[in-house]
């Protein structure tokens, strides 16, 4: 089989049994890798009643079919599990080098089952695969652990680790790799910690077969030559994602003080310009990438200098804007704290911002904080509370459940400003004046994550106040994204450098020898989307619509200030957007997938599952749409 290493590992952590199995070609062709494989494995293998932190949950590591190839930025690796934050399917990807390294060692997939009696790390050096004791690493920070393992094993091992937050079950704990790149979302690090896996260390020296290496090389060389002079290359190389802080603020979409506002008057203290001038040490790139958008940075702190890759836009938005920081050094330091403690900076920033608002409103008091304060923009307060969360101490034990879980304990209407969807904290775009962006967050299968569909430009093109006509475009974007997530390549080459989906289809066929079309990949995306929707319904009940309604802040509280002052969506408009969205998807009015749709996608088993729990969508009077999803038609000039 071309494009794959051809083997997978099944590891039972309780018994220590490690089994090498042949990767089935039909499975690989159907699900491609990363997000696709993760979705199928979790759906089929994790019992419906399995506790996300218990022995029956699985941790899946899956690069994709283009990972480790010559295809530009084929660096990604998926980490998946039932999320303790959302109680459903979760996949989170990381760039860097660990995905390619796993394939070079000879494996396309690792599935961890059960719980180890003692802390362990997985050691892989080509054919040698062992669970080794991690007692000496347990309790250490993610960055510190990566450094120590590289010292112990050798610089050429690629390492992924968890920090104390993952060990202690913080529901937004992440998996960290390459000194600051993270599989950040949905608490995959907490699941890794619950299984007592501290780290994964991989060294691979093999290769895997490519069907038409000559054509692939020629295509990639042409893309390199074409993209090097691309106008977007220089600004991205200089600033990375941080360059969008000013734009997001201009557009009144920059979350400020826990999304109370969408405009931050101190944005120039924390933007890309400040990052590059004050903190950037060197640029970093993932495997196979010539854009180098990663910024390895130094922050000056009261403890001395610390080093970390970042902060990226999302971190600046959710720690910088949402916690109202006024120094890029403070944001970078907070980024370092989250990474070393092993927490997602997006959820971590959001949870602290939520706690700061609770403190402002008197819901959390000094008594809850050992006499400490929790003031907007105060880095010492941020450091205090983020440590409490990582070690589940005092109020940290409440906040470690994420904003939704914490609000359910704290009460006093705090759920209205717990800025999450389905239990996952929102990415860094305030959306009361960006309805399609909000719809993307509302309907995302894993919760409010921007990478599932980034549609704010749809709002810019079709009108910020308009709600009609946006849902089919959101569906289309939700189908484009999984192409990148299953092939396991960085989407920035598409968005930034005009490397188009059809070029990746060509690459895929050079790599595999298949004759796949873009339409087939879009259909795979739709299958994945419906599979994870069904999985969510199976584990969390229904109807689907109740999980898609956003926090009340979006429809009850007008934006406080800035260009979007006074903007707010009504619940009626939100439901109207959902109506349009469900129709575009072929789901019923309740937001449940219909039998006709699932059969059209070849998912008979899912029909049976949803029937069993009475959550199969009612037949649509006019049948399902033939085409689900629609490209944005550019506004006429």
């Amino acid at each position: 089989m071309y494009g794959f290493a051809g083997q997978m590992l099944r590891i039972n952590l309780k018994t220590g049994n490690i089994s090498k199995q042949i990767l089935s070609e039909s499975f690989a062709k159907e699900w491609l890798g990363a997000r696709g494989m993760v979705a199928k494995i979790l759906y089929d293998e994790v019992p419906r009643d399995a506790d996300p932190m218990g022995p029956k949950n699985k941790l899946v590591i899956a690069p994709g079919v283009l990972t480790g190839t010559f295809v530009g930025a084929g660096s990604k690796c998926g980490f998946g599990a039932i999320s303790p934050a959302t109680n459903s399917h979760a996949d989170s990807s990381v760039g860097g080098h660990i995905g390619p390294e796993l394939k070079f060692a000879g494996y396309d997939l690792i599935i961890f089952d059960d719980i180890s009696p003692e802390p362990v790390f997985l050691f892989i050096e080509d054919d040698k695969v062992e669970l080794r004791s991690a007692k000496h690493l347990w309790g250490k920070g993610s960055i510190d652990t990566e450094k120590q393992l590289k010292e112990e094993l050798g610089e050429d091992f690629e390492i992924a680790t968890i920090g104390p937050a993952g060990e202690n079950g913080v529901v937004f704990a992440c998996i960290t790799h390459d000194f600051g790149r993270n599989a950040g979302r949905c608490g995959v690090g907490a699941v890794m910690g619950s299984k007592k896996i501290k780290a994964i260390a991989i060294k691979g020296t093999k290769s895997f077969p490519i069907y038409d290496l000559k054509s692939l090389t020629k295509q990639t060389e042409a893309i390199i030559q074409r993209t090097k002079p691309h106008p977007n290359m220089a600004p991205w190389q200089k600033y990375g994602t941080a360059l969008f802080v000013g734009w997001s603020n201009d557009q009144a979409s920059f979350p400020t003080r826990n999304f109370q506002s969408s405009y931050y008057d101190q944005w120039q203290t924390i933007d890309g310009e400040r990052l590059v001038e004050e903190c950037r040490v060197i640029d970093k790139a993932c495997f196979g990438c010539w854009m180098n958008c990663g910024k390895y940075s130094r922050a000056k702190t009261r403890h001395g200098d610390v080093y970390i890759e970042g902060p990226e836009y999302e971190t600046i938005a959710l720690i910088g804007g949402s916690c109202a920081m006024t120094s890029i050094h403070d944001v970078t330091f907070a980024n370092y704290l989250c990474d070393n403690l092993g927490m997602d900076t997006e959820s971590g920033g959001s949870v602290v911002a939520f706690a700061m608002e609770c403190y402002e409103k008197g819901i959390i008091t000094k008594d809850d904080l050992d006499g400490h304060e929790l003031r907007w923009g105060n880095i010492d307060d941020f450091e205090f509370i983020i440590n409490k969360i990582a070690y589940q101490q005092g109020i940290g034990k409440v906040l470690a459940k994420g904003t939704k879980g914490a609000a359910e304990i704290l009460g006093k209407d705090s759920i209205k400003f717990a800025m999450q969807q389905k239990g996952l904290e929102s990415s860094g775009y305030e959306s009361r004046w960006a309805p399609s962006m909000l719809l993307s967050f509302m309907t995302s299968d894993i919760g409010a994550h921007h990478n599932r569909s980034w549609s704010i430009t749809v709002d810019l093109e079709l009108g910020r106040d308009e709600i009609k006509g946006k849902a089919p475009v959101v569906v289309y974007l939700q189908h484009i994204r999984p192409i990148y997530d299953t092939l396991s390549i960085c989407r920035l080459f598409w968005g930034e450098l005009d490397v188009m989906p059809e070029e990746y289809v060509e690459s895929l066929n050079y790599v595999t020898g298949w004759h796949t079309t873009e339409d087939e990949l879009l259909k795979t995306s739709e299958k994945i989307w419906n599979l994870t929707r069904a999985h969510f319904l199976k584990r969390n009940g229904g109807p689907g619509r109740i999980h898609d309604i956003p926090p009340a802040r979006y429809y009850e509280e007008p934006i406080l200030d800035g260009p979007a002052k006074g903007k707010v969506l009504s619940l009626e408009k939100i439901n109207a957007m959902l109506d349009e969205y469900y129709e575009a998807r072929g789901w019923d009015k309740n937001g449940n997938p219909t039998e006709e749709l699932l059969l059209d996608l070849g998912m008979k088993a899912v029909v049976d599952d949803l029937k069993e729990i009475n959550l199969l969508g009612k037949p649509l009077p006019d049948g399902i749409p033939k085409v689900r999803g629609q490209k944005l038609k550019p506004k006429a000039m």
Partner: protein
Amino acid sequence: MICNSVLTAKNKGTMTVYLKSGGKLREKLKPDVDQYTRKIEVEEGLSLREILNQFEIPVELIAFAFVDGRLERLDYFPEDGQVITLQPPVSGG
């Protein structure tokens, strides 16, 4: 830091500016120098926003400009001969 060079009235005349962009914005820009670049003649003293409006290039599709290795906003005042890279918004993080 925003760095604008506001021209005084005595400098007013026409100037040449090169606008560059990729992606969807490139279609709107209608490049004529190379695949990414369009050469335009405009009155001196206009802000980038005014220039883009004059040439019917949709400002809502532009996140910022990149000029001489720096980020600039749409209220930037271009100078004769400058190459202005227009950056569309893209998600990331």
